[in-house]
């Protein structure tokens, strides 16, 4: 109990180290979700509305990529960004940027796959109407994504959940450097290895609390927006 209290104390007393860790965690995971959405939403929508040979195979692969092991993504990004790797001259290994890249790779397939399913379901409803209006493919994608925007929030939240929860990728490419690349999950891993299990559990509870708050905010915003959208 005392450990949970001490973690709570850290939070309530606005401990600067803890605040910085929480801030970095949110910044990295939210950025990753944003970049992944910029890639994943159009990709998923296009896949939902186009027909070409091998489409089914691509969908199966995309769905499977939702289960990409973070540690494998971490290792791949690590090898790319290492000084001995092809992108070594960028000097990004062991930086927050590298962590955003790794999480974007993890999250993009989740957002793309869920977008594909959402848009495809909606397409069944809209098909006749859009066909009658005779709109081109680009407009079709835009219309459907816009009309599905509230459902797509769930896809973004699924992506955020994945990003906020994972430790395997960011601990490899970020290095868990104190005050620079240490996030909630890597701090929990570190405290566990130091044997400070109560503090680790306390940090874990704070992380869960933050994820709940983010989801509640998204839920609230969705309802307000839906009301205005009529």
């Amino acid at each position: 109990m005392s450990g949970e209290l001490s973690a709570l104390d850290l939070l309530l007393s606005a401990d600067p180290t803890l605040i910085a860790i929480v801030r970095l965690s949110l910044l990295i995971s939210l950025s990753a979700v944003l970049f992944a959405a910029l890639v994943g939403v159009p990709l998923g929508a296009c896949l939902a509305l186009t027909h070409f040979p091998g489409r089914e195979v691509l969908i199966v692969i995309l769905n499977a990529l939702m289960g990409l092991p973070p540690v494998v993504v971490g290792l791949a990004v690590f090898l790319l960004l290492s000084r001995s790797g092809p992108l070594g001259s960028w000097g990004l290994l062991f930086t927050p940027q590298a962590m955003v890249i790794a999480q974007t790779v993890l999250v993009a397939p989740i957002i793309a796959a869920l977008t594909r399913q959402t848009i495809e379901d909606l397409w069944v409803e809209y098909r006749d109407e859009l066909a009658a209006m005779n709109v081109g493919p680009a407009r079709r994608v835009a219309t459907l994504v816009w009309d599905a925007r509230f459902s797509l929030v769930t896809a973004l939240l699924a992506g955020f959940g994945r990003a906020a929860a994972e430790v395997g990728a960011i601990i490899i490419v970020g290095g868990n450097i104190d005050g620079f690349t240490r996030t909630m999950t890597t701090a929990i891993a570190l405290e566990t290895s130091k044997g400070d299990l109560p503090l680790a559990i306390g940090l874990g509870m704070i992380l869960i609390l933050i994820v709940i708050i983010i989801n509640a905010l998204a839920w609230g915003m969705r309802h307000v927006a839906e009301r205005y959208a009529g």
Partner: protein
Amino acid sequence: MMNRRTVMVAATLAAAIFTAPVHAQDKSIVVSSTTSTQDSGLFGYLLPLFKQKTGIEVKVVAQGTGQALDTGRRGDADVVFVHAKSAEEKFLAEGEGVKRYPVMYNDFVLIGPNSDPAGIKGTKDIARALQMIKDKQAPFISRGDRSGTHIAELALWNKDAGIDIEKDKGSWYKSIGQGMGAALNTASASNAYVLSDRGTWISFKNKGDLVIAVEGDKRLFNQYGVILVNPAKHPNVKRDFGQQFIDWLVSPEGQKTIANYMINGEQLFYPNASDPGA
């Protein structure tokens, strides 16, 4: 679909993320080091003092010694600070490092459950203790991760106790492939013996029923060394800042600072930069 505001936010965020830390990188170095130096809290104590004096920020990536040296080999660190002399000398022989400086030492301790199933408590002879653990098939946790502690453990089994552990190990010997803290957690949860560096042991918070079973054998000596990664091989290495860090560690001031680091009145590391054979 992607309205202009979303794109603006994305662009701003991207700009913020991808430019902010560049300034912070100007006067900083990456040191790949061992879990023991981080988990024991030594770096948390040393680095702010070093930064105050020089303005150089030291970013520590804590890994096992083998992995830390590999990080140097790939050019991803400016300095390596590790504890396995044989592996460090190999690193130098490959031309990956400039020069090895001895910095400090502490010692390894054999940790075990208070119930002492192998009956070794109190013995000062580490080789004899390992033989008894093997004879009694008492549970033993090995790091199994090419860390300095793992390398030392293998040498104690193979050289000092005369046991070919690769061949003679049974289900009582579990290699977990993880850091020191994780190994101590595992030993604590399964009432097993485990070799630990003293610094991590003192600062470890989940001791449970574990106690020191064997200590004080001079074969348990644990030397730390620091090496600048060779800038001739890895041009991105920050030679000046890295060398400044090394020079400070082995200077009288750095050595005194290391000696002053204590937990509960217990000194964790003993400086010995002036010992040329260390």
